[in-house]
């Protein structure tokens, strides 16, 4: 292979300038020599015979004149069986195996293959010699945990291919040739269990992209009912620090109704990843009963790890998600936090001395964010099955102010906005999604008409509350006061959810429909009270009782009984006039 060599002519932070002769491509990977070490880097700009590279490692002790080897390949990841349950860094280095090799610290310049080369897989072919296939078509399967992992024709093939050879059913190694394909022009291509794909290029082996319309149940009531997420849609969660972004992401990663979850811990605290790492293997997946880890991939580039690899980690995770989507699975990608990724772009842009945009973010920030979220979606594959990627990204706006470039660029491209508010988290109203500011363009899991009425009630309740702050309770009519109490009741028993209660922490779709219909009827009912104190006392009791109801497992006699009791309570104060 024709490889270009270069020498370092400048070092500035994690950016190096390299003089080269030969051909160098944009986003090509190169390795800088440092003694025996090789530090991985990526080309980010080329000017004449000078290339600027971002180094994925600490650049201490690199010197002018050091050799740089260009590889001719863009930054790529390995795709194959064995990705699930793994924990990678942003460059797809398996962290647990790095720890075995290097101990406590991440030594720079150490790269391991993402998939362990000694693993064996039971291959069963689904095509036979002579069949015609296209890029992305299934050639065979291997069992991977709870799934049949499809071994697909390489995604970068073009045109019709003929299978000239296929391995019979049996155990094989990762790098063993399982099939040979021949193109119409006679080029032959070997297929192994692994293929490589450049992370910054979307995989597009599908026939059609569909509109996301099916709700993705996350079992968080305020999300599913009021601000739903669709399978194949994308949403964002901006919020100030301490408002519960990460807890919300963790809950979603546990309960969301999907096949595979890819968690991208991008520039956040290592401690939070550790909680996921240590707790997921112990928790069981509500869908399969197996360990949650069996359906999870964690890409972990925490805040103190090299910043260029943080930028790569987002692309690595979405590429892995696309790979599983190609198998016809529903994938959820949770990125925490996209602001840290944007900051990585900003750092690099600063070093390249590009003309800065708002808050020194690069001018291309918006298009980069948009193209990331556009990699989500629901698609029809060539064999008629469909697969989806749902993307949920948190945003950490500076000072908790949503008018900053990252939040605003994200809002333009997502289908749902779950804005967390400091006021709600201070009042311990979790999840702290602001019911007045947030929005969603996707269909709800419950009756839309009722949701619209409930939303109107929340707005009205808020208005009355604002008014009461000026005129006091005395100046508010009993009817308005009752409306306000109703909106507070809805907030307390439906929008708020106790993440630490074994039942209340996750409410599935049917239960949401049932509970929301019941509560909706309470809210629509005309009520009559003696005075405001009586109204307040009644709603305090009703709130307490409904919260207890939320904690009772569904389909039990106690559940029905408790519901009856709530109905009776309401009947006492209903105005039948």
């Amino acid at each position, binding site marked *: 292979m024709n490889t270009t060599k270069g020498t370092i002519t400048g070092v500035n932070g994690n950016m190096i300038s390299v003089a080269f002769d030969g051909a160098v491509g944009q986003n090509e990977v190169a390795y800088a020599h440092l003694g025996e070490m090789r530090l991985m880097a990526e080309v980010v700009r080329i000017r004449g015979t000078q290339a600027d590279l971002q180094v994925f490692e600490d650049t201490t*002790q690199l010197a002018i004149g050091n050799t740089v080897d260009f590889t001719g390949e863009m930054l790529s990841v390995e795709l194959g069986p064995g990705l699930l349950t793994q924990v990678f860094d942003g460059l797809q280095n398996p962290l647990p195996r790095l*720890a075995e090799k290097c101990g406590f610290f991440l030594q720079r310049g150490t790269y391991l293959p993402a998939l362990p080369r000694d693993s064996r897989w039971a291959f069963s072919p689904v095509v036979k010699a002579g069949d015609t296939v296209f890029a992305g078509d299934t050639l065979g399967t291997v069992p991977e945990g709870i799934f049949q992992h499809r071994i697909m024709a390489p995604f970068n093939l073009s045109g019709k291919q003929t299978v000239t050879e296929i391995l019979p059913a049996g155990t094989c190694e990762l790098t063993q040739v399982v099939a040979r394909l021949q193109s119409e022009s006679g080029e032959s291509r070997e297929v192994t269990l692994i293929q490589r794909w450049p992370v910054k290029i979307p995989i597009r082996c599908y026939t059609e992209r569909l509109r996301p319309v099916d709700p993705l149940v996350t079992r968080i009531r305020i999300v599913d009912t009021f601000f739903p997420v669709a399978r194949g849609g994308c949403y964002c969660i901006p919020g100030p620090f301490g408002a519960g972004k990460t807890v919300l992401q963790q809950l979603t990663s546990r309960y969301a109704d999907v096949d595979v979850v890819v968690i991208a811990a991008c*520039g956040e605290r*290592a401690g939070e990843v550790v909680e996921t790492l240590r707790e997921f293997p112990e928790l069981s997946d509500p869908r399969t009963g197996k360990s949650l880890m069996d359906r999870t991939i964690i890409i972990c580039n925490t*805040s103190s790890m090299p910043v260029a690899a943080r930028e790569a980690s987002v692309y690595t995770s979405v590429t892995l998600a696309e790979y599983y989507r190609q198998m016809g699975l529903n994938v959820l990608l949770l990125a925490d936090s996209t602001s840290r990724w944007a900051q990585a772009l900003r750092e690099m842009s*600063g070093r390249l*001395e590009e003309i800065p945009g708002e808050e020194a973010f690069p001018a291309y920030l918006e298009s980069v964010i948009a193209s990331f979220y556009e990699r989500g979606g629901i698609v029809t594959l060539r064999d008629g099955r469909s697969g989806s990627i749902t993307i949920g990204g948190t945003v950490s706006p500076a*000072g908790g102010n949503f008018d900053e470039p990252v939040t605003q660029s994200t809002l333009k491209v997502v289908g749902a906005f779950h804005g967390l508010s400091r006021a709600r988290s201070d009042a311990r109203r979790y999840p702290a999604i602001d019911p007045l500011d947030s929005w969603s363009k996707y269909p709800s899991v419950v009756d839309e008409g009722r949701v619209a009425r409930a939303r109107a009630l929340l707005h009205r309740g808020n208005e009355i509350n604002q008014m009461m702050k000026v005129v006091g309770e005395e100046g508010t009519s009993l009817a308005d006061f009752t409306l306000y109490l109703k909106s507070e009741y809805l907030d307390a028993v439906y929008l708020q959810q106790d993440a630490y209660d074994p039942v209340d922490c996750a409410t599935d779709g049917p239960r949401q429909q049932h509970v929301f219909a019941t509560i909706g009827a309470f809210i629509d009912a005309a009520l009559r009270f003696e005075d405001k104190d009586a109204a307040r006392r009644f709603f305090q009791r009703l709130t307490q009782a409904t919260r207890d109801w939320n904690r009772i497992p569904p389909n039990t006699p106690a559940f029905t009984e408790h519901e009856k009791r709530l109905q009776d309570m309401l009947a006492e104060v209903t105005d039948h006039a």
Partner: protein
Amino acid sequence: MHKVYHRIDTIAGNVVTLKAPSVSYRELAEITSRRGTSLAQVIRLQGDTVALQVFAGARGVATDARVRFLGDPMRVPFSDALLGRIFTGSAEPRDRGPALKDNLIPIGGPSVNPAKRIIPRKMVRTGIPMIDIFNSLVESQKLPIFARAGEPYNQLLARIALQAEVDIILLGGMGLKYDDYLFFRDTLEENGALSRSVLFIHTAADPVVECLLVPDITLAVAEQFALQGKRVLVLLTDMTNFADSMKEIAITMEQVPSNRGYPGDLYSQLASRYEKAVDFEGAGSITILAVTTMPGDDVTHPVPDNTGYITEGQFYLRNGRIEPFGSLSRLKQQVNGRTREDHRTIMNTLIQLFAAYRETLEKQSMGFRMSAWDQKLLQYGVRFEREMMDLSVNIPLEGALDRAWRILADCFDPVETGISSQLIEKFWPKASALEPASPAL
């Protein structure tokens, strides 16, 4: 063998540039001018041109100063001989002790592999009820104290250091007032803690570049002690000065500023320091307590704002007391379920009642009539502020919990507290009227 250069091309701020081939990034150099000798570090390489950041400042450095490259990046000596010693920001002795030269370790080393971290489970007892009861400090936690300039944050830091059950105390002082440095030194000495402490002090009068080195040096030393199995408490005061030094250098280097003049990598820079807090499986731990002063008492200022996203909670110090609202220890749930069965209940009850007290105060200030319940709350609030919040209160956790029950019993009936009858049965002080009220302070 080290080549010497005599020709400096540019001098701007604390950065000088000169032409020198085969220099490596972050290598140290020694600059000798008429004013004396200072270390400097390579911060940019561009062709033959080397940019050096001069630790002692470029003031008085002439274009014919002698520059000698030393071949290695910054390192600090590490041994048990460090204990009891005081150094400057560039690890030179500040006390009259001998300079240490052995067993040099690199600073700013790689980060810990997340796969090797463990979930923290051990509480650090401080004897301060506002921390122990309400926001327990956990080993390997990173926690800043947010305060306005003028609050007694250094006093608080010193007290926590003295009372926390740790093996080694490391103090990194950045832009410290000389008086504050002396205060730390004397306090540690008087309490016999200096012999298990190492101090790296950059005072406000020292060259600004040295300020940048303090956290890295302190944490590199902490890491070595922790790997030896020691429980290390690192105190960093004040991180806002550190960020301001970074800003100064970034502007000198003509970097594009992002927010209020701070460099775009402020978050990453702060995070790479704070993330050194760790509990090593099978070895020791590093706990970081830092001070972040908030210019203008504004928590949305870039330094406290970025810090809040990095650290595991924060303590707000306001009017000389740790404010119960806003202060947060994200790790407290890991430990406060395993101290005493009434811990969590007391924590929640006291805070709810205190919130009610604050509302009552507001009502009182607006001239509303006080009900009997309001009177109880007022009585409670005053007791709470005096016997719990006051920073001079110094009792172990169990004593503080007992005191909390006493205050509740003196002010309320059991039902008014909303505590479960099971706990009331066990902990509510019997016949409280007969015993003297809480011990005098």
